[in-house]
Every structure is written in C-alpha cells, then in structure tokens.
C-alpha cells in the first residue's frame, strides 16, 4: 500500500486570506454587515450537514455570487454505518435486517434485491412460490408509493408548503398500515426473505387493502390538486433543476429523473422479476426534464403502483393457502411468524413441535437459524427498479453461511452526483428544489 495515497478534499477555497464567517444562529445581521464591509463578490456557504431539506445528513458546499450558485459540491458520509461490512459477519438471512435499514424510506426495495441476489446464487429463482412473489410485488409497490410520497411531500415542505407534506404523509401512513398488517412492522420490515417472504398475509388482508386503495387514491388526488396547478408551485419547479438525456446518461441517472428526460427505462419492464411481466401497468415519462415533470411522474407512478396493488389483491385471493416459502427445508425459514398475546414471534404450534415433539426438528431449527444455510461459491449481480432508480446488488459467496461481500448500488448515491449540474448557474433557493427532485435518502447513500 503506497503511503502517498491521495488525500481527501482540501480546503474548499484555496486562498488562505479568504475571510471566514461562522454562523451560530441569530447572528445573521452581523455576518451580513461584515460581508458587506469586506465587499467580497464570491462567498462560500456550507449548507448542512443538518439542514432540514437534506433528507438525512447531507452537506452541500456552495460557492455563491450574490444569489447565483457558481459551484456546488455534495459532501456525504455523515450517515455511514458500515452496513455492508456488518453483513459479512451475519448469515445470509440476517443480512435482510441490515439492508432493510439502508434506504429506510424504501426498506423492502433493498430486501427484495438482496434476496433476489441470494436466490440467483442458490439457483432457486424459479422455485420461489407464486404467492411469495405476489406478496413481494404488493409490498414493493406499496414501498414505491410510500417513497414517492415522501419525495413529493418533503419536497413541498422544503418550499414552505406544509400541507403538501401532511397530506402525503397521511397517504403514506395507509401504505404502512397494509405493510404492518402483513409483516408486523411499518418500516424496516425484514419481510422479504431468501426463498420467499417471512409470513403469509393474515386473514382479511385483501379486504383491508381494497378498503384502503380508494383512500390512498383520494389523498393522491388531493395532493395533485394542491400542487400541480398551483402558480407558486409551478413557478418554483418549472424549468428548474434541468437535466437532459445526455446528462442523465453521462451521470448514470436512473429512475424518475431519467424518465423525466424521456427515456422509458424501467427495470420492471426491461428485465422483469417476481413476475412483473404479468402485471398491467404503464411507465410514465416526460420530455421536460425539470423538477416539475419529476413531481408529476412520481405522482403518476403512484397511480400505476396502485393499479398493480389492485391486481395483487385479485391474485392473492386466487392463491389463498399456497406456500410463501421455497419447499427446500434446507433453505426455508423453519417457522412462520404469528401474533401472540405478547406480540409477534414464532408460531406457538412450531414451538410446541420443536420443544415437545421432535428433537430432529429442534436440531434443524437451531442449525438453520444460528448457523444459516450455505450458498455455493460465486458472484452475482441483481438489479431491480427501486423507487429512486436502478437498485443493484453485487453478492459474492465463498460457499459459506455468510456473504463474502455484499455491495449495494443505491440509486441515490449515484444520482446525487448530479447535484452540481442541477444547481450550478441557478438560484441558491433552487438548490433545495434540486435536492428534493433527486430524492435520495442519505441512509441509502451512505450505507
């Protein structure tokens, strides 16, 4: 290892004589006076790492001339928690609980792509039961709606429209209610597991979803009515944070930003997984390539996702009682979860069986749960269409019970690179719009 390794970013401004202002809040007038006195044209502003508009902890370094952004750089890493490293010390199944916490606004998107990778490594992709895939699709689409609503809602909030946020969060809460009914948890569900899902949907789920769909739709309508024709909203978003197709391709942008530039690329259509090719849905696109069109696209995608959710309901009814985990007992989680008087846990029938009736079952349960299953050596790449873009995972197995390497391509990490091109030359107030339109979550960016 050479010691002349490149060092991290130097001082943002090279000039050592440059005056420095530190704001601690409440002293803005002094700073303004001082800046006026020194009459510097160009000032550097450090936005974050704990600015409310940054969707986590993002630091943005802005070089301004008046209100114009001359240069913008994003500094990340403030939410790095070493999830990928941690996953190397846990079994393949436990990894689900870790990757769920990356982009915590779209938990199940990571779980799904991770499990898809494991199944590919194991060669059991085609053995996953149909009902498990339906439940996965259902959960992924609810996740997509939730994630888009956060994008649109917090985007509105950042521009001062609190009602947009509250409306969006009310609708998002409904998606959580369904997720909670099925998985037991609102977020960080650890629901999608290698080989299937953690548990079947309880009785009454389909009826409950059907009851909530119109409610979610109504909130989406409300959100659209609130925003899309609002002159202030249009004034703030139209023609702001532009990125054309060439820019998207150079920066590897995927998801709603790419589609807003006119390319209808959606992994669900291009390389269908979990049976997406059998669902009827559209991929909305636009050619405007601005912040406004991305809000519209996200809203339209929510409606498309609701269409898929409705189709999932029909299929869940048709597959009532079918398995939700692969048949191979060497991989399938031994117990289904159930809700008891003291909360959610392993089903009592299963506990009775392993503790009182069958020592072999107990051994099997113990081996599979503590040691985990072995995955043949090799590497795979799995990609899905996450709410924010192409979500990929690179998995390497050394033939053991733990990943040798698990690397996630978080779409937010990649897309955040576009911040400079979206903001430079624009108004400083539009930086916040640009951040909202990228819709990254720093938990996923930093992992």
């Amino acid at each position, binding site marked *: 290892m050479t010691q002349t390794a490149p060092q991290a970013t130097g001082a943002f401004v090279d000039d050592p004589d440059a005056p420095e202002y530190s704001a601690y809040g409440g002293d803005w007038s002094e700073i303004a006076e001082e800046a006026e006195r020194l009459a510097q044209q160009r000032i550097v502003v450090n936005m974050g790492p704990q600015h409310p508009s940054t969707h986590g902890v993002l630091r943005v370094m802005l070089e301004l001339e008046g209100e114009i952004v001359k240069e913008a750089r994003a500094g*990340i890493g403030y939410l790095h928690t*070493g999830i990928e490293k941690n996953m190397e010390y846990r079994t393949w199944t436990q990894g689900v609980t870790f990757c769920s916490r990356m982009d915590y606004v779209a938990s199940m998107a990571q779980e799904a792509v991770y499990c898809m990778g494991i199944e590919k490594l194991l060669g059991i992709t085609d053995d996953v039961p149909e009902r498990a895939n339906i439940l996965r699709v259902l959960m992924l689409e609810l996740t997509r709606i939730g994630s888009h609503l956060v994008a649109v809602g917090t985007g509105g909030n950042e521009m001062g429209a609190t009602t947009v946020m509250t409306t969006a969060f009310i609708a998002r809460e409904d998606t959580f209610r369904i997720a909670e009914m099925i998985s037991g948890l609102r977020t960080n569900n650890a629901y999608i597991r290698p080989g299937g899902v953690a548990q079947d949907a309880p009785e009454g789920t389909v009826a409950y979803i059907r009851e909530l769909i119109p409610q979610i739709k109504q909130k989406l309508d409300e959100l659209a009515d609130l925003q899309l024709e609002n002159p202030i909203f249009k004034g703030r978003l139209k023609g702001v944070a532009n990125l054309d197709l060439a820019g998207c391709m150079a*920066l590897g942008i995927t998801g709603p930003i790419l589609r807003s530039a006119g390319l209808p690329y959606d992994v669900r259509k*291009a390389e269908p997984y979990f049976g997406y090719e059998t669902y009827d849905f559209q991929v909305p696109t636009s050619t405007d390539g601005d912040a406004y069109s991305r809000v519209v696209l996200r809203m339209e995608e929510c409606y498309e996702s609701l269409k898929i959710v409705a189709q999932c309901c029909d299929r869940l009814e048709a597959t009532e009682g079918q398995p939700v985990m692969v048949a191979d007992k060497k991989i399938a989680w031994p117990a289904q979860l159930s809700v008891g008087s003291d909360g959610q846990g392993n089903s009592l029938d299963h506990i009775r069986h392993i503790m009182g009736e069958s020592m072999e079952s107990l051994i099997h349960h113990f081996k599979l749960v503590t040691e*985990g*299953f072995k995955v043949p050596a090799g590497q795979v*790449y799995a990609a899905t269409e996450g709410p924010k873009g192409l979500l990929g995972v*690179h998995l390497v197995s050394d033939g053991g019970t733990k990943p040798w390497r698990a690397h996630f*391509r978080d779409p937010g990490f990649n897309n955040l690179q576009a911040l400079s091109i979206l903001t430079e030359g624009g108004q400083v107030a539009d930086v916040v719009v640009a951040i909202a339109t990228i819709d990254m979550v720093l938990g996923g960016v930093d992992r």
Partner: protein
Amino acid sequence: MSESQDLTGAEDTPQPGDREQITLINVRQGSFGALGDTSGFDGLVTPVMMPGASERPYGEWFDGVVDVLEELLGDDAAAAIEHVVVDRGELTLHIAREHLLAVARHLRDDQDLRFEMCLGVSGVHYPADERPLHAVYPMQSITHNRRLRLEVAVTDADPHVPSLTGIYPMNNWHERETWDFFGIVFDGHPSLARIEMPDDWVGHPQRKDYPLGGIPVEYKGAEIPSPDNRRQYR
C-alpha cells in the same frame, strides 16, 4: 433448489480440473466452521475457488459480445481478456488493467455492444488470492438490454487501476468509495478523495483484515462477544 446441487457437501466448489481456476476466494480450515473441537478435523484445509474460466460456446448472447470485443481489440485481445467466466447466467470478463480503458471504450461506443452505463464499481478483497484486490464493474446496456461484468485484479503492493471516469463520468463517486473502502487507487480520477469515511481516516475498512469492531455486551449476566469475535460458522 435443483436436486443436483448439494448445499451441505464439498460439491459446492468446482473441482480442480473442471475449469481453469482464477480466483481463490478463501482458504477454509476445519470442517465445521469452528476450530478447536475434538473431532480432529482442524487440520483440514480447503481452498474455495470462484467458478473457473469457461470454454466456448458461452451461450446466449455472450459469444457475440466476446467476438465483437475481440475483433475491436485486435492483437491486444488475448492480453486484454484474461478469462471469460459464465456462471449463473452471467458473463464476467477478467480484464488486464492495462487494457481496461480500451475495453470500456469499445463497450460503450460500439453499436453492437453499447453498454451505456457502468453501474459503479464494487471492490472485493480476497486476501488469499495472489491478486487480492478486485474491482468489479457491472456494465448495463440499455439498447440491447444486457448486463455483463468486468473484473480487474491487482496486488496489494501495486493497487492501481485506471479510472473509468473519462469514459463513464458516473463512476466518479463509485471509484472514490472503492478507494475509501479497499484502497484501490484509480489513476486518472479527477479527485480521488475519501467519500464515506472521514478525510483523515487511516486504513480501508472493508478489507478483510480490517476488524469490524464492536464491544462485548452483557445480557442477563452473560457476556456476548462482539460480532466479529463470536464463534463463526462459515
């Protein structure tokens, strides 16, 4: 799970002689994943290899892509493409680092290849391998709806790989991340700074010899060691 595969046995690993061996992932000791038992199996040493090089025909669209690439590379083809591996329906090209830029440029620009996007670079550390640091590039063709993987291996003493940022600007942050976590130096990167770890951090945390860290936790009177000090069932 297809019936031909046995997850519990040693059949997991391709046997020597099957295919040309490329990457030594790990050398495992003992039989049950944990050392220090009384079985006497502690002396057992098992090298675990990546699936080895494939022979033609590779199947699907793989042959066509490799043909086009070889034609474009001309005389350099044999030196540039070290190995071709087809495993689990995915194509991996092991590329010599001197030729990485040429390969990437052809992959991006040729109309029959047209891999418009590089989905980043994932570092992998195989300490037992003779070239322990691997940079893995998933390449995505939207035009042809294909994906393949480039893999470049370098040594610890000379961890240099040319930067792809000139061809795929999107790889800027991904390369910074791989430098940060694995210490692979991407020559020609405009600003190869740490990205996730603090600027003054020492070491590259996702290397296998870098400890996970953590503290033992007391639970109901018993002490639970930190995750990397627990008994490992590998």
